[in-house]
């Protein structure tokens, strides 16, 4: 197994505030890695920096052997095979579900030929999206939007999928659906990096996990290990 993602010394932030301080982490191909941490620890910023939405200040990043990705535009990052299901979903509200999905593949020469296959895959995962194909994305429910965001990212045929807080605002039943889908996606061969508030649920499906505190990686281990870690339990599981 090769490395899907390797990050070292990553530093990033907004304006005069630095959020990430020299973060090192790696993800192997096929893994499902979870990043947990308190609010404001820098989890979302980490994903946004990886996918090119936030400019890094220092550090290096390589994915699937391709180096010097840091500082590339979001468009270039997605072309290199990294899909991002962002915080807030970032859909196109005045386009139909179908148009939103297609947009995931439309501008990527790599993904375009596989659009039919990926569409089927998405509809199999989320049959609800197929039913709502002609509906405007802005009129969807929260859960449906989350499904669409994941579906749109899958349409880009990613080898690595970054998923930010998929269960946010969803009912327990819905978030279970979403987690199942993520595991399915991972089982189909897509490497997944998951940022999640629901620590119990996310650690239980994770191969490995990182704990982020104040912009620094403070712990690393398998999902199971961290679930059993007393510090983690005290801080994030309120146990």
């Amino acid at each position, binding site marked *: 197994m090769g490395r899907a993602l390797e990050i070292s010394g990553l530093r990033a932030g907004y304006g005069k505030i630095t959020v990430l301080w020299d973060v090192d982490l790696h993800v192997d191909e096929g893994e499902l890695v979870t990043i947990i941490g308190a609010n404001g620890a820098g989890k979302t910023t980490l994903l946004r920096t990886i996918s090119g939405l936030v400019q890094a200040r220092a550090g290096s990043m390589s994915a699937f052997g391709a180096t010097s990705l840091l500082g590339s535009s*979001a468009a270039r990052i997605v072309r290199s095979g990294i899909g991002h299901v962002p915080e807030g979903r970032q*859909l196109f509200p005045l386009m139909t579900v179908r148009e939103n999905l297609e947009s995931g593949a439309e501008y990527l020469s790599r993904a375009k030929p596989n659009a039919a296959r990926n569409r089927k895959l998405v509809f199999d995962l989320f049959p609800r999206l197929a039913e709502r194909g002609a509906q405007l994305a802005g009129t969807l429910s929260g859960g449906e939007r989350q499904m669409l965001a994941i579906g749109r990212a899958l349409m880009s045929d990613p080898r690595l999928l970054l998923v930010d807080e998929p269960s946010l605002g969803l009912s327990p039943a819905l978030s279970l659906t979403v987690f199942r889908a993520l595991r399915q996606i991972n089982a189909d061969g897509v490497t997944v990096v998951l940022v999640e508030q629901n620590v119990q649920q996310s650690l239980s499906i994770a191969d490995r996990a990182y704990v982020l505190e104040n912009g620094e990686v403070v712990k690393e281990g398998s999902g199971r290990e961290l679930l059993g870690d007393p510090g983690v339990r005290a801080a994030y599981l309120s146990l």
Partner: protein
Amino acid sequence: MDLSLLPQAIVSGVLASGLYALVSVGLALAIGVIGIVNFAHGEFFMVGAFLAYQLFVGFGFDPLLSLLFVAPALAVIGALIYLSSIRFVLRAPELNQMLLTFGIGIILQNLALLIWGGDPRTIANVPYRSLGFQVGGVSIGAVPLGSFVISLVLVAGLYWMLASTPLGRAMRAVAQNRIGAGLVGLEVDRVYLVAFALSALLAGLGGVMIGVIQSPTPTVGLGFTLKAFAIVVLAGLGNIRGILGAALTVALAESLVATLVPNGDALRNMVFFAIIFVVLVWRSRRVA
């Protein structure tokens, strides 16, 4: 009040909406896709009008032929302006964009003053400028009819482009969610560049029409710019189709008042802006 003029008033009003729509679509694209309030848009009209004039004086080109040259020229000018300045203020507050484009407008206006002087110019030979057809006692002008048809085609084409082409969908994607657009592999900056160039190109088309019906001067764009802004806002930002309805509403109202009220032509702007004001206020109260 002379009701015998009513049919002519209606026809004139409907046809006049064509020019209003024509000068508004480019601005709608700039505001709708890029979200930039371009105070220099009127100067693009002016440059288009002067280029058509220059092609006529230099080569005897008919303005319709000039369209083929002026439109791409404006696209290039728009692209250069975008690359050299606009792209640096995309994320800046709206007010910064206004000051920037206002500055660009001043530069263009005074460059034109240096090049062409302040006197009104004439594209002297436009064989269809004074052409009118009588249909059942109503006169239909070739130029208003032409600009009506052109603007219908343009709006329809633009609408089709936005709905059904990859580029159009890219523009809508960028307009609706800049972050999402980046995440699906769109180079947002490049889409904006194309949209701004297209906006300038459309302004060039409008400018050539203005050059036909009026005298090109460094300030010729002004009267149309304020109205184009108002029409775009009346239509709703980003609503390309709505341009037609908005343009029709105000053009028809203007024509009716100009015809039916004594000294009504002098009330044109008052009617126009009163409609804009009332509709905006009324709409804001209804929504809330």
